């Protein structure tokens, strides 16, 4: 109780360090989300109208999902060293499966009658994809981004182990120094950030639903 009461004071006293960690965390998460999510969108669009390729990408997503983030981080150490790069790559990989599954499912569920009409009216393949399939898949795609953002934001806490910085630094240092306010600040900030991403993308997903 006393620790919680002391928390605001601690944060004020260390606001520079907290803001720095927060900035690093947001930056890392956003970069990974954009890179991993972007790769997943490209992969999903390639699979549109090619059922076998779509099936293969879904299988790939399943494999990626089974990889523990910490193991990926450790495996990347000898390749990319420490710091931002390995953390970024590991988190990007983490973002791929939910976005890919969301997009592929969304494309698959797009109203076949609308697509038939689109083809019959003389839309090209690309026009059908971008003017009909993708808008119809948008809500599920954003749901995928929502899941990915929560996983990436919480996964980014592990970046601290390989020198990637972020709010995880506060947690690991807090544990090492038995500095409870530091630890709690890091943990609560990560949780709030994840909640915020979840809420924001959830609202956006509802917005684009036709």
């Amino acid at each position: 109780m006393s620790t919680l009461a002391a928390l605001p004071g601690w944060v004020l006293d260390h606001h520079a360090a907290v803001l720095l960690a927060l900035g690093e965390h947001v930056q890392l998460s956003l970069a990974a989300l954009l890179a991993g999510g972007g790769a997943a969108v490209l992969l999903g669009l390639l699979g549109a109208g090619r059922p076998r390729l779509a099936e293969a990408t879904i299988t790939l997503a399943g494999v990626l999902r089974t990889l523990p983030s910490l193991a990926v981080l450790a495996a990347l150490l000898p390749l990319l060293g420490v710091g931002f790069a390995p953390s970024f790559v590991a988190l990007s990989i983490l973002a791929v499966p939910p976005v890919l599954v969301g997009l592929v499912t969304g494309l698959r569920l797009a109203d076949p009658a609308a697509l038939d009409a689109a083809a019959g009216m003389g839309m090209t393949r690309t026009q059908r994809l971008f003017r009909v399939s993708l808008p119809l898949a948008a809500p599920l795609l954003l749901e995928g981004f929502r899941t990915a953002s929560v996983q990436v934001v919480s996964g980014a806490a592990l970046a601290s182990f390989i020198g990637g910085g972020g709010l995880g630094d506060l947690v690991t240092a807090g544990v090492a120094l038995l500095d409870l306010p530091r630890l709690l600040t890091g943990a609560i900030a990560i949780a709030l950030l994840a909640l915020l991403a979840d809420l924001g993308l959830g609202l956006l997903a509802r917005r684009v639903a036709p």
Partner: protein
Amino acid sequence: MNAAATPMIETERLGKTWPGATRPAVDGVSLRVARGTCCALIGPSGCGKTTLLRMLNRLVEPDTGAIRLDGADALRADPVRLRRGIGYVIQNVGLFPHRDVAANIATVPRLLGWKRARIEARVDAVLSLVGLDPAEYRHRNPRQLSGGQAQRVGVARALAADPPVLLMDEPFGAVDPLQRARLQVELLRLLRELGKTVVIVTHDVEEAVLLGDSVAVMRDGRLVQHAPPAALLAAPADDFVAAFLGADRLLKRLALLPAEAAIADPPPPPDTLSPGTHPPGAHPSGALPIGASLRDALAAMLERDARALPLAGGGVVTLESLFAAARAAPAAGPPDGRPASATPGMAGGAALD
């Protein structure tokens, strides 16, 4: 309309076999549809009627044969450009749920690069054409439409770029029966007015004979018979067609013949015109209204237990004259062109007073 003119749609031994199938889905179909007429494609499920329709705008690529649209080789054309010049209406409508009614209708004009003002004017025009008030429906979301309204928008979308040819795949299959009858009648009027050449797939015989200037019956991928509806109903080519049309095919045919065609000459003695009891809603004088068919006449005779009925336009139809007219109507006609006998409400009765 000159019967010798180039047919608007012409297929020549058109064939399609799906990969892995043992027999063709469409097997050497040669079909001619004259300009400005409506051809109803009919047959049991799996007879290839939808495949045939989808080959006309090349959503399905034929393996063999030729397609000519207005004399031009459709198989040489760029399929995407070809389709922009052909209206397409399907059973499940397929409106784009993420776009409002106006944007849905504007699809093909936009693909064709029309100017905005022209598109907006055209959207309102086709909405009015299909009986929807533009001010009320322009910005509706497809989700806010009933099944019948959605299909009206579907037809408006197909008409948007004013294509000479319309392909319709069971357009009223998903609409409730009451709405369906209204839509059929309105569509009939609209298509005649606009002079479109239409191919409509249906499994409903009544719909086919109501909408079609000609009816093409298919079975196992083959075209079995192509004739004007009255001729088809009077003289089915074989037992399959007869069975498919139903045991009441001659009754269905009566619906296509105008009551005026059976005016008794000389008129029967007045005492045969039984006063009877007039059911509510009947013509006050007991006469059959103008535009009534022979089927209406027969129904009225049964209802009033009368062997003769006066017509509102003058003249009297008797049971005997009705039978004679049903016999005398042309049993067969050319498959192309608009058959005169299929147009109800012909003139003629008024001269006989």
